[in-house]
């Protein structure tokens, strides 16, 4: 479990980092927290010729208020910083609720927001949360910078809209609308494992208490975060009754996900878990929306 030899570069600025990425292209791999990349290298599943270590790029580590009421997060911000941020707790309660589910404290001390979404593991929390928040991702290269909506950033299994010379520099997460309740839940074999299934929900109610908007995003049951189309179709305009939430959960788990089977759970079990968890998070989100 030793990686093959590689060239190691340690830039201190974003400009320097993207210059290296431009120079080495497909041969280069940016190293963020290393919580996925390093094990894959030790298993020799990834064999990058050049490692561009971003850990000395200070300018990428921050959590800032955005003018729209949301939050801007630098790509090299560690999970633990997000977990302990008052700003995040205040403005992004869904993200705040989710971060403790990410692996273990040791991993949260090293892992970064940008690293997690660039890796794009479909069973990871942050891709799903970024989608649920309708976040945007800023990419940089020597060619300039561009913003990509989260829905368009995640393209498939470990695949994103990133070009080989690009890196994520910032994530913009808008706040949830007023009268919105949220919830996140997941089921994993052991505390801190990759979840078999996870679900994030945000439900916005009208002044009359009917459902205005529903966001229901699944993780671990497809090749990327899976946004439910069925849940809004069932719920929008309706009273959020227990039966309606049950139907939304059931239909979402039937129609909107594409689970796979592995040694831990068959596809059928994942689908079952998806419906159970969807119901639980929708219920909690509605309760919270009603309490606001």
């Amino acid at each position, binding site marked *: 479990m030793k990686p093959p030899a590689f060239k190691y570069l340690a830039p201190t600025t974003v400009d320097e980092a993207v210059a290296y990425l431009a120079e080495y292209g497909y041969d280069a791999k940016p190293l963020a927290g290393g919580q996925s990349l390093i094990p894959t290298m030790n298993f020799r599943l990834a064999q990058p010729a050049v490692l561009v270590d971003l850990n000395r790029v200070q300018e990428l580590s921050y959590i800032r208020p955005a003018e729209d009421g949301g939050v801007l997060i630098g790509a090299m911000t560690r999970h633990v910083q997000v977990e302990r941020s008052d700003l995040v707790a205040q403005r992004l309660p869904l993200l705040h609720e989710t971060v403790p589910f990410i692996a273990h404290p040791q991993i949260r001390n090293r892992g970064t927001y940008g690293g997690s979404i660039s890796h794009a593991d479909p069973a990871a929390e942050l891709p799903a949360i970024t989608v649920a928040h309708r976040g945007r991702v800023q990419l940089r290269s020597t060619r300039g910078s561009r913003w990509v909506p989260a829905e368009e950033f995640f393209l498939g299994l470990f695949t994103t809209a990133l070009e080989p010379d690009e890196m994520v520099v910032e994530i913009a997460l808008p706040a949830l609308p007023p009268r919105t309740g949220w919830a996140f839940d997941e089921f994993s*074999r052991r*505390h801190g494992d990759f979840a*078999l299934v996870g679900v994030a929900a945000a439900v916005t109610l009208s002044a009359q208490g009917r459902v205005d908007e529903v966001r229901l995003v699944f993780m671990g049951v497809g090749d990327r975060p899976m946004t439910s189309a069925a849940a809004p179709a069932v719920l929008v305009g309706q009273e959020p009754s227990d039966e309606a939430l049950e139907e939304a959960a059931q239909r979402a788990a039937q129609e909107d996900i594409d689970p796979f089977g592995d040694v831990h759970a068959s596809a059928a079990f994942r689908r079952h878990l998806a419906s159970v968890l969807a119901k639980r998070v929708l219920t909690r989100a509605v309760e919270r929306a009603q309490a606001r």
Partner: protein
Amino acid sequence: MAGRYFGQPIRRNEDPALLTGQALFTDDVHLPGMVHVAFLRSDYAHARIRSIDVSRALERPGVIGVYTAEDLGDYWQPGPLLVPPPPVEDIIFHQRTQVPLAKGKVRHVGEPVVMVVAESRYIAEDALEDIFVDYEPLPPVVDIEKALEPDAPLVHEDLGTNLAARVVQRKGDYEAAKAKADVVISRRFYYDHGLAAAMENRGIVAHWDPKMQYMTIWDTTQAPVVIRNGLARMLGLSESQVRVIAPFIGGAFGPKIMMFYPEEVLIPWLSLKLKRPVKWIEDRRENFFATTHERYQVHYAEIALTRDGRILGVKDRFYHDTGAYDPYGLTVPINSQCTLLGPYDIPAYHSEMNVVFTNKTIVTPYRGAGRQHGVFVMERLLDIAAKELGIDRTEIRRRNFIPPDKFPYNNEVIYQDFVPLVYDSGNYEPALELAKKLIDYDRFLKEEQPRLRAEGKHVGLGIVAYVEGTGIGPYEGARVQVETTGKVNVATGVGTQGQSHFTSFAQIVAEQLDVDVRNIRVVTGDTAEFHWGTGTFASRGAVVAGNAIHAAAKKVREKVLQKASEEFGVPPEELELRNGYVYTQDGRSISLADLAVKANPLRGAVKPGTEPGLEATMYFGPERGATASGVHAMIVEVDPELMDVKIRKYVVVHDCGKVINPLVVEGQIHGGVAQGVGNSFYEEIVYNEDGQLLTASFMDYLLPTAMEVPPIEVGHVETPSPWNELGTKGAGEAGAIPTAAAFVQAVEDALADYDLEILEAPLSPNRLFELLKEAKQKKEG
């Protein structure tokens, strides 16, 4: 005889070094000029090797050598049969032991094929990618029952069968017993075990010093003396030229008693050949393939009972997966066969064991060593019988316990130590009663469970009994010496892998010599210090090595008193040993240090026959093992939507005879239960139909963590073994043995409204999902 030292919860002597990172582990050995080895291992479960091309690897800078089976010449030999088959009539046993490097054919994923030695492990691993092996894949043998069908592919073609062994053991007349029965229950049981996953993987450093003509080997083995003797023979050296050190080892749990691993044979050979120190440290991925497993058994078991729940007889036919080779003989399945009888008075038993070769990693003992399989079958049969007969599950057990006056109790079946399994002593009912009290059995069933059920919660209780044959022979030895420094040296041949030997062995000596435990230095696992012994296995350290140390310490005590008696002119019985001094009744005293100086005179003359020093070496070989026993109970809560199970309470009542140090025993139990919890719900080795191991990392092979292991309450019952002077019984494996049986019973109880019958372990959320679905379909007809 809980004394000043023996039986006391004394803090561990070894902890300061371990906790401050000062203890030597094999990978801490760094020697000048040391080179590093990596192995190319088979990617196939079963394949013919057409050719191997190593030429590109040899060209890589930093590579020193590349070796295939052909390059080993006469040194290439199948390993020894470590445990011969037991003397049972009409036994079938086919010996096929592992080889250093695969020749002609590979028989399991991970079997070593090529050895690369290089200036660093990095380069050695790079070179593995340069090697090309041309394999012709063969159909693999994976399922143990299908393996015995006539057209099954063969793991060892020359055998003409995949049957490695068949052993039938009988006690009484089962068919006659069955004819008298009111109830006969038969079921098929499936029990999969896991792998030890010790914190430290295996590793070997071999250093041949050509000028000293001396070989030093650091090896993560449980049996250093046996390794030394075997290697000396294989390498053509004298035993006195080979020193094997088993330093601190980060857990072993059985797989490190297996020998000789291919790497164990090859690394010293390479050092002798290269005249350089050679290191191989197993990495975690290798450990999953290359360190032995325990694997599954299928039992077709039947129990015959009277209406009031008395067992008349048990019949069992079972299949045991031994993997690709069987170097450890039949220890694991024999343990299953014998331990199935448990603490129960069973007049008739008929058991047919079938051991099967498959294209999987070799199976050798891992904590519990097959005993859990037997306990699982017996306890499940009793649970089903209790339900069917309408008898409380603890009551049916109580009625069948061997009564205290029936000991020694002869089970009339041959155990792993080749003699009939006779229980030395036991008193099972008090343990059951204490466990019921600690888990609050009656109140839970009458009040707590109905109340929680009314709240919609699914809670259940599991309670099971077991025995563990421990402390078997053949023998261990020890040397105890009072130094002229006043410190006491203890040396024994067993290895140590976390059992607290440095403390509990010291307590045994302290009890005789009355010296501070911290002044007693225990050395284990270094053949230069003590070169007789067999090893650490079968929960035998405290019994076998413990009694040898006790005997040696007693002998030294006699010498001390004798010497002092000569000094003071007072008979020995009038002397007292206290805090490192010998006192006379009239207040004179001499320290042990001064006595040791006097016992080793530098001038003058001694009486004929005098041995120098205050030293003795003694051996202990029990005729038979000592049988420990106990009861485990737990309360679980099941979420029948998520299929998750949480253990809310866990109780162990344990009887390991005389306890040397209760802290140590409780630690052993806690660790065992943790592994048992893993084996109940988290750990599972999964092979697919191609014989590929699908769970080869800690992402997929799930060890329970602090979050999954519940707090454990331990109650002690002490029934001393009459067959050794200390009265001890082994405690090493018990914690892990009955856990799955208790867990499954508790889950079944929690899901009583689903009418579930669980006949397998381990469970998982996914498996519970399937079982509940099946139960629902059955209910709906």
